[in-house]
Every structure is written in C-alpha cells, then in structure tokens.
C-alpha cells in the first residue's frame, strides 16, 4: 500500500478564486492510501516545495499528488522536489486544477466538485505508480541549422563560437536569405549588405561550419542528441570545390532570358549563374530547367570557357547522412502571393509592386542599379502610393490573407517612404494604413521622422481599388479621419504583402514531428518561457519560422536558440524518458504485431529460453523493447493482442484507475 501525500495549491487566487481549496484537501484526505492532505498558497514557491519535502520525509511518503497548474508547467518542478526528498521523481502525479478547472469554470461549487474528482483520479493513478529510472543516451556534438538566412547564419556562428561543429542546409545556391535582398534596414538605415555580408564571410571561413547550399533535408530519424539526418545535395552541375567563382561562365552563357529570382524576376540572368556578387559559397550553379546543354545536349559554352574545368554536366543529386545532437529550424518567410488581391491590379500592371520588389528597385545591385524607375516604362515615378496590410490582419477575409499582423510592414514602409523622399524630394508619397504599429527601440521616433521631417502623407484608411488607366494608376481610397473618398493618380503602387512561413516548413515539421500552428508557424514549447524550443526535444526555432519578426529580434532569437543548443551539446549524456514500453515476456506470444506499429523500430524479437514447471526448457520468440529508442507513444500497447505490452507511467491499470475514479 502506498503512503500518499496530497498537496493542493491556491496559486494565489488563480485556483482559490473558483475552487474551495481547503474543501478539496479535506475531501481527498479519505481517499485510499492518502496519509496527509494539505493546501498552501503557492506550492511551486521555495516554501511550498520545502513543505512537500518535509511531508515526504516526515510521513515516509511513497507517492505524492500535487493539485495545481498543468503538468506541462510544473511537473518537472515537483519531480525535482520529490527527488530532493529522496522520493523517486516518477512517484509524482499532478492534478491539473488550474488550466483545466479553475480557469474554465466560473462558480465555486462546480469548480470544487471537479477539482475533487481530478484529485481522486490522480490519487488512483499514483497508487499504481512504480519508481522509474531513466536510461541514458550519448550526445552527438554537432548541430544542424536548416536555413541560411540571417537567423541560420547567426545561430551557426554562435554555436561554432562555442567550439561545436555546425552544418547549414540552405535550399538556395547561396546563404543570405531575405536579408541579402534588402536595400537598407530600419531604424538605422544602414545598408543590409554591409552588415550581412561580413557575417556570410565569417560563416564561409569558420572551420567549424560547413555549408550545404542548394540542398535540402530529406529525412530525419532519431531523437534528441542522436538525430540521423539525410541531406539531399541537388546537382548544381558545377564542382563546388573547384569553381573559383570568377563568373566568366555567367557572362558567356548564351541562354540570357532566364527570370532572375534574386531580383524577383524583374530582370534576367543566365542559365548558369551566381545569385549575387557576395554569394557564399561563391560558386556558379546551372539551372537545369533553362540550360540548353542539359536539355538538348547541344551547347557546352560554360564548360569551354571554364579555366579550371569545374563544369560537370553529368552530376547527379547526392544524398549524405549525418548525425546531429540538435537541430535548429530557421526556414524563414516569404511574402504571400498577390493573386487573390486583384483589386490592387498587381497582375494587370507592372507598376504595382510588392515591398520586396521595391527593395530590389532601390538596391544598387538591383535591376535598375539603385535608381527608382517605374518597371513599365523606366520613368521616374512622381506619385507613389503605399498600401499597408495587404493580406495581413484579414479577420474577415481569412481565405485571402492572414489573420495575424505581419509586424515588419509598418516599419519598412516608413523606411521606404523616407528613403524615397530623401533621394527624390519632388516625389509625393502616400501611405494608406489601418493602424501604424511601431513598438520597438527607436521605432516610433523613426516613423515620426518620416511624417514630420520627410513629409510623407500618412492617411488612415484603406485603398479600395487600383485601376491602370492611361499610363497612370487610379487609386481609389477612403480617408477615415476626414471621412472623404480620395482619388489619386499614382505612378507606382507598393503593396505591403503579408508574410507567411516558407513552404518548406510544413513538410519539415512533419519530418521533425515538431508542431505548427494553424498558420504554419512553428510552435514554441512555451509561448513565454521557452520561446526558442520546439515541443520536440532537441529541435530549436530561430527567426521568422516561429512568427513574424524583424532583423534585431531574429538575431536575438538566433542567439537564444544557439545558447540552448550549446547547453545541450555540452552534455556528455542525456537522461531519457523512462515512460517507455515494456513487454511482459511471460505473456508475449511473439506475434510481431507490436513491431509493425512501432514508428521507431524500437521493438525487436529474440529467442529466449524459458524454464518450464517440469524443469525442462523451451525456447520462445518474445518481443524486446529498446528503451533508448522507444519514445513512449503507446501504439504497441493497444496493438498487443495478448496484453503483454504496457507503457510505464501510463499503464493500463493506471488509466483504468483514472477512468474508474472519474466515473465514480
């Protein structure tokens, strides 16, 4: 028989507000096995934990139930408390009477009644708990960063700085990500390339960092500390270790009409190309979709002009498998497609552009060499209209856009407006907005400068329609403050397109078994306290894959993710989860059903000798669980027909006891 202690937490008024805590402690006193039942203001406080420790020692408790907040919050805390008092940490059960009781039920009798039942269920379970000891597994001291934008770059640099090897996998031919495409950055207006490219060079020259560019993750197996990752290195038809990046091939290639995705298809590149001058690795790549040699076998110009013989038309995709201890996701974002926003005439006129396209038009390395010219006729625009929240904050048009705020648009629009007014003072700039949101260090000051010093016309109201008419764009909009309809003849319209997670994030999340929210942003382990960890152990989040962010936030999150990775890689061994499957060999009939449902291949079969009652021996095939590989899902326990398989910590008996306690 267990000796159980019950500790009911008030959590200030969080629980005590709708649950009569004293009545709960009183009612649970008479449950089977309970020897002490008490309540306290804050169980998780130092004093509360001391109280639990003393009670364990004084009453020789063999199990405890803490009626408090969610186990997702403080289960680990109370397990440590129990361990400090010499009790096996797995003899602790939590009755969730806050998130799943006091916070959802409004009146005291209902809350109290439910809290008592939840307490009873936890007591019934802990009565059947057994002490568990976690196994240990080694840690592969190498990290993988998926995505080579500023988030991935910073994370990799920080991890490498601590002395651990890091690999970056990037789908594009170069690292740099979206930041490489930007012209200037807010709120300081320093040039994006000037602050990014030195970091890219640092990555390239760091002997702890390997870059797998033009590559993608194709398979992930294993678990925290021991991931096996298969990386697909797409054929770039240029030998990376030989190419010097001289760029001669990219000048001589006769295929000149390939849309240049780095400049958002506003100009052309060759079939063999280096995305931009500071690309890392600075290696040419052949685009197999456009290369005449690869499509028809007739050309070979690049091979002829290459002085080092780096071209290899017979290259094939390669797959490499590496072991990693930790994985950082830094897959970033993209602006959403403007297809569903035809009221702004994006598909009808070349002079309706997105903000990212404007970045390229203003960039010295962009298609116009940094002079702001209309894409349609190459003229200087004199009236420019910015439309904010295109697809952001669409609560009534969720099928078109996103419900969330994309966060960066207010600031980059202020930046664009300011830069344009600075460079071309004869230009009229209008910004149509729902709200201007500028929280952040020096952000509101920046926006006010745009309005006060640079005379940008900010108008609260949305643009209803943009129609191309006679070389102009007729913008019809409402001014909500003056209550007027406005008609503006604009030369250029810039849409602040909402941002969304990169499309590669969803399949990656499936491979990593990391959870995502409804918008395909990765979910963090705790929204406030564990913001850079995914709920999946060993998987960390960096940058906009977790939610919209600007560059300073991305860099700080990248550093935070790196520090979590370093903390993990510093360990020589990890303690595993002891709540794993266990097979009762006497009951197992060796049918293999459990082996088939196990997603981890943790179950194997062995032939084992059993002594029979008549002193003879008999060899039987029985299931054996590899505890280091088992993740404790319990699929096998239900599949097992003979009832031999059970899950420690969530045994059949325990769950039956909980059901019984609830249904009493």
């Amino acid at each position, binding site marked *: 028989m267990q000796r159980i202690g019950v500790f009911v937490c008030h959590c200030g008024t969080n629980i005590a507000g709708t649950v009569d805590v004293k009545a709960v402690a009183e009612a649970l006193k008479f449950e089977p096995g309970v020897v002490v039942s008490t309540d306290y203001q804050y169980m998780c406080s130092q004093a509360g934990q001391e109280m639990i420790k003393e009670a364990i020692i004084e009453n020789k408790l063999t199990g405890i139930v803490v009626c408090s907040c969610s186990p997702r919050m403080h289960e680990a805390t109370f397990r440590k408390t129990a361990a400090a008092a010499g009790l096996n940490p797995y003899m602790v059960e939590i009755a969730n009477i806050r998130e799943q009781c006091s916070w959802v039920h409004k009146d005291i009798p209902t809350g109290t009644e*439910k809290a008592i039942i939840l307490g009873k269920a936890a007591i019934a379970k802990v009565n059947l708990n057994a002490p568990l000891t976690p196994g240990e597994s080694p840690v592969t001291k190498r990290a993988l960063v998926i995505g080579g934008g500023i988030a991935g770059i910073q994370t990799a640099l920080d991890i490498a700085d601590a002395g651990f090897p890091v690999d970056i996998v990037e789908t594009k031919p170069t690292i740099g990500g979206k930041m490489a495409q930007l012209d200037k950055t807010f709120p300081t207006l320093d040039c994006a390339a000037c602050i990014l490219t030195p970091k890219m060079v640092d990555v390239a020259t760091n002997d702890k960092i390997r870059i797998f560019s033009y590559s993608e993750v194709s398979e992930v197996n294993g678990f925290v500390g021991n991931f096996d990752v298969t990386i697909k290195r797409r054929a770039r038809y240029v030998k990376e270790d030989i190419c010097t990046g001289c760029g001669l091939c990219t000048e001589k290639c006769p295929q000149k009409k390939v849309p240049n995705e780095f400049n958002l298809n506003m100009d052309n590149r060759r079939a063999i190309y280096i995305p931009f001058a500071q690309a890392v690795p600075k290696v040419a790549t052949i685009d197999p979709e456009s290369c005449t040699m690869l499509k028809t076998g007739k050309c070979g110009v690049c091979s002829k002009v290459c002085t080092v013989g780096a071209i290899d038309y017979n290259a094939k995709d390669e797959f490499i498998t590496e072991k990693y201890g930790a994985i950082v996701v830094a897959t970033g974002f993209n602006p959403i497609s403007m297809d569903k926003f035809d009221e702004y005439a994006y598909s009808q006129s070349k002079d309706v552009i997105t903000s990212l396209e404007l970045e390229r038009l203003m960039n010295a390395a962009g298609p116009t060499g940094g002079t702001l010219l209309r894409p349609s006729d190459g003229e200087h625009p004199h009236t420019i209209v910015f439309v904010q929240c295109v697809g952001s904050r669409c609560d009534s048009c969720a099928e078109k856009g996103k419900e969330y705020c994309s966060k960066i648009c207010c600031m980059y629009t202020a930046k664009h407006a300011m830069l344009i007014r600075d460079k071309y003072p004869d230009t009229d700039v209008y910004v149509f907005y729902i709200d201007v949101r500028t929280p952040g260090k020096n952000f509101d000051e920046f926006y006010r400068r745009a309005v006060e010093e640079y005379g940008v016309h900010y108008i609260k109201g949305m643009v209803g329609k943009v129609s191309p008419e006679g070389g102009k764009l007729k913008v019809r909009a409402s001014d909500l403050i003056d209550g007027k309809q406005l008609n503006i003849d604009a030369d250029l319209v810039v849409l602040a397109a909402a941002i969304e997670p990169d499309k590669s994030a969803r399949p990656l999340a*499936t491979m990593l078994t990391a*959870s995502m929210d409804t918008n395909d942003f990765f979910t963090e382990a705790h929204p406030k306290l564990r913001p850079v960890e995914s709920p999946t152990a060993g998987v960390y989040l960096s940058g906009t894959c977790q939610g919209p962010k600007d560059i300073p936030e991305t860099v700080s999150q990248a550093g935070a993710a790196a520090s979590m990775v370093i903390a993990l890689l510093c360990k020589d061994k990890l303690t595993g989860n002891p709540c794993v499957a266990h097979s009762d060999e006497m009951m197992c009939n060796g049918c293999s059903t459990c082996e088939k*449902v196990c997603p981890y291949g943790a179950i194997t079969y062995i032939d084992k000798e059993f002594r029979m009652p008549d002193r003879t021996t008999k060899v039987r095939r029985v299931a054996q669980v590899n505890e280091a590989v088992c993740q404790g899902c319990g*699929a096998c326990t239900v*599949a097992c027909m003979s009832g031999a398989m059970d899950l420690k910590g969530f045994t059949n008996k325990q769950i039956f006891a909980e*059901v019984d306690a609830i*249904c009493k």
Partner: protein
Amino acid sequence: MQMNEYKPLIVAFCCNWCSYAGADLAGNNRLSYPADVKIIRVPCSCRVNPMFILRAFQKGADGVIICGCHPGDCHYTSGNYYTRRRMALLFSMLEFLGIERERTRVEWVSAAEGAKFAETMNDFAETVAALGENKRLEDLRCKK
C-alpha cells in the same frame, strides 16, 4: 442554467502534445466549457485502448471523446492514424451495441487551438446532454 438540469459525465482522453496543451490553452484564455468534461492525459491518442472506452461506459460515462494531433502532425509520426482506424471500428461496434454514435467522438485539436478545444467540448457536452443518460453497457453493480 437550471439547478436540476441533467449533467452528463464525459471522459476526454487528450494526447500530451497537442490536445492536452490545447486544453491548457483554453484555460489560459479563460474559455469555458462544461465541468462535466474530465480530461485524462495520455502520451498519444494511440495509447487509448478500446478497453478504456468500454470501461468508461461500463462505469457510467455518458460520452467519451478522444482528442489527438491533426493528421500528419502526430508527435510520434503516425499514432493518430492508428487512433482513427481503431476508433472507427470500435465506434461502429458500440453503435451496434446500442450506444449512439453521437456519444463517441475523435477530434483533432492542436496545441494552438484553445478555442477549438472549448468549442468542441461545448458542442460534445450539448450533444451528449441531448441524448440523456447512457443506459447501455452500464454495469449496474458499479452503482451502489
């Protein structure tokens, strides 16, 4: 709400990674749902043995709901697919035994869907309450 209104007894099995977290989120956001819903935490929805559900009905539950991660998002890769198949089979058997289909349900609730959790529980509790007390399969010896 009337005082003497019939209160159904509902057992909810929630997977640790998605739905239990979704239930916590509903709590964090103070979204109410009936107190008749009692949650049992399991590592994965695939840990729910059909026997647990039979036991709940035997002991007098009026409805049983199983919540797991959305298809494709299972923390254990494929657990919720097993759940989906097993429960489809079990529920049709239960219907054959006279337990209305509406008393059993499998729902996918992610960790970010607190509102969906509360809505689902409100809807399920309402549906079960409309059916009234469950008499089938109940072991009267369990009632003193």
